[in-house]
């Protein structure tokens, strides 16, 4: 007993006990699970991933048919989740920025509109908003009586039909990827301190932009189906539209709901950023004779974004997680694909493990990348001024 008077020994004993209990719990759980699985006559393991699924998916960015494997279907779910997540974050950011500018503007009416927006949409659960938009979109008129905008965009209960380019889906993805890559390269170039002192930075940036554009045009020119128009405009043929892109109501409902809901939160974050920018900075910019737009875009906004970027990153990760609502409207995101697979294959434990691992990887990658961006552009030391 004398031994336990020593703080170090005691703490070691506690930790050993903690570890033992933890090991016991885990062992018990594994034992219980394996007995139950054996009793039900189920085989564990990941072999089922290569079996064919036998069911259809409403919306997928990459082609999928019922004969393909579970692995492929999970991949479809991941791609859909990432697509929806990025789309929602970008839209929410745009809405958030606009509402934040409304809230800090000197105009009373704009303030009121901003406040009204935030208080309305922030206080109603996202899932309710998603259901609402889904109900509203599926209650649009049928395809024959669809609302049309300039005879090229059609709104109907089967979805929104928009014109597109006459290329296959994978080429579209390639173009988008090229654009994304070019833009991030440009952003890196203009923001990172590593290139601050470089002489021909402007020329290089122009070069990157031109190269990106050339690659995009090249892909499109190569991929265009021979003999077809560049643009494909949706046309009513029988009961449905042909050509163009169909945006299904599931996707639009989720994207609209997350963008509106997330926009309300992001607006408040950005507003806090605007308020934290020192008055002197803005006044100095004005005193130098910068136009109001330049004061905003070159001084006020960059400083505000830098001030709140860490908070904003948390908000993005949170928004990305919040988009996991596909299952309530029938959008095949990662979670709903997993849920369907559990129902079909019965491999609960394995699929839940995949679900957790998938989300941990996606979320941590997102926050890792954004934190690197934050580190690269954060204000340091003498750059902090009031």
């Amino acid at each position, binding site marked *: 007993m004398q031994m336990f008077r020593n703080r170090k020994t005691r703490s070691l004993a506690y930790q050993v006990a903690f570890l033992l209990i933890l090991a016991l719990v885990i062992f018990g759980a594994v034992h219980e699970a394996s007995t139950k699985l054996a009793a039900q006559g189920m085989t564990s393991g990941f072999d089922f991933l290569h079996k064919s699924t036998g069911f259809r998916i409403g919306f997928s960015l990459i082609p999928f048919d019922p004969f393909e494997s579970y692995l492929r279907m999970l991949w479809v779910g991941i791609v859909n989740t990432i697509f929806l997540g990025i789309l929602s974050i970008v839209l929410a950011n745009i809405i958030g920025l606009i509402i934040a500018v409304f809230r800090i503007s000197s105009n009373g009416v704009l303030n009121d509109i901003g406040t009204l927006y935030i208080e309305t949409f922030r206080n109603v659960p996202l*899932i309710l908003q998603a259901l609402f938009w889904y109900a509203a979109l599926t209650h649009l008129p049928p395809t024959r009586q669809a609302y049309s905008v300039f005879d090229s965009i059609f709104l109907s209960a089967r979805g929104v039909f928009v014109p597109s380019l006459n290329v296959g889906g994978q080429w579209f993805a390639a173009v988008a990827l090229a654009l994304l890559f070019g833009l991030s390269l440009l952003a890196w170039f203009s923001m990172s301190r590593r290139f601050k002192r470089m002489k021909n930075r402007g020329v290089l940036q122009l070069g990157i932009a031109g190269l990106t554009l050339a690659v995009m045009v090249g892909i499109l020119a190569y991929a265009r189906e021979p003999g077809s128009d560049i643009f494909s405009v949706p046309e009513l043929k029988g009961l449905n539209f042909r050509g163009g892109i169909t945006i299904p109501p599931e996707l639009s409902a989720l994207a609209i709901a997350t963008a509106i809901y997330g926009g309300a939160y992001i607006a408040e974050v950005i507003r806090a950023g605007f308020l934290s920018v020192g008055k002197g900075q803005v006044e100095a910019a004005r005193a130098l004779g910068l136009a109001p737009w330049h004061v905003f875009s070159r001084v006020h906004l960059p400083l505000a974004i830098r001030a709140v970027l860490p908070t904003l990153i948390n908000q993005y990760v949170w928004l990305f997680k919040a988009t996991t609502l596909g299952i309530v409207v029938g959008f095949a995101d990662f979670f709903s694909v997993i849920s369907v697979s559990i129902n079909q294959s019965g491999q609960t434990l394995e699929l839940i493990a995949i679900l957790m691992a998938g*989300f*941990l990887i996606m979320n941590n990658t997102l*926050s890792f990348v954004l934190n690197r961006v934050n580190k690269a552009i954060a204000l340091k030391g003498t750059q902090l001024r009031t």
Partner: protein
Amino acid sequence: MTTVSDVNTHPQPLNTGFQPDGLGARLRRRYFRTPGNAMISLVGMAALLYLVYHALDWAVLKAVWASPDGTSAVCRDIAGACWAVIQQRWRIIIFGLFPYDEQWRSMLACIAMVATIVLSCLPWFWKPLRLSTLWCAGFITFYVLMRGGLFGMRVVMPADWGGLTLTVFFYAAGVLIGMPMAVALALLRRSEMPLVSRMTGALIDGVRSLPLITILFTAALIFPFVLPDWLQGDKIWRVIIGFALFFAAYQAEIIRSGIQSIPVGQEEAAKALGLSYWHRTGRIILPQAFRNALPPTINQLVITFKETSLIVIIGFFDILASGNAAYGTGEWSFAYFEVYIFVALVYFVFVFSLSRYGAYLERRMRFGQH
């Protein structure tokens, strides 16, 4: 650490006595300071007026409020809202599938829980003992009223609960279980034993980087596999535990930040006085930490209330599902708009009042510190 927002505190404009007050002057300053501003104001006002007029026209002027014969015939050819759907189906939205004769119990239970929440906003209750007594009492009242079996009330199992009552139950149970869990997690994470603090940290960060719905799903599906039969309990309790864990992971970080914002001297002084760990924690650290962390805590409570709506995915008949059921019959299927607005209003009342209260507290506390 000083952050940018700490450095740039805006001094309030000095009151120089120059206050050309009066409503007209203030309005002019707010809306019509410059010609450009006035134009934006006019356009904005016109847009707002247009919106408000149409909303009012739809929701009030042209609306049908009640259906005398219980069918949707009154709403056939109207241009406004059909509130008759609420008048006809409000019972299913609020009480779900609770037996008709016993719905007064559901009503009373709901009122008891809301009263508990309102009472805990009064500063008199902000003592650990009083607050926990209040919540336990409120929760037990709620549970006894809902489940029955005592005082000659018929037994209604949780599987038959639904509607707003289920949402409130879920919320209260989740917070009640989650709060002690959060304190425990926060203290464990601050532990000086590296193994304990690392493990707790991994658990908290892991839970925080997963969407709530995956946690609920896991709780509903995995627990039956890994727990022995005598430990499993009802599905609703398993999901509540998952919900509480999720709440606790976020709340633990809030409490930890509250603890970190206490000057180190406080704990050192307590140590120097020879107080034990539990006395230090219970009497010195936690009371101050809770006070510091009150605004984010209220914020978290608000978010948590909204997040209860996710249980509909796990297959519970909460207010969202009962709302869907309310317009889900062939009779009322056109009235989805009205039902969603009603459900949204219910959430809005809860969430908005809670968050306004949080904002008030924050103002009050800031005032107290200067």
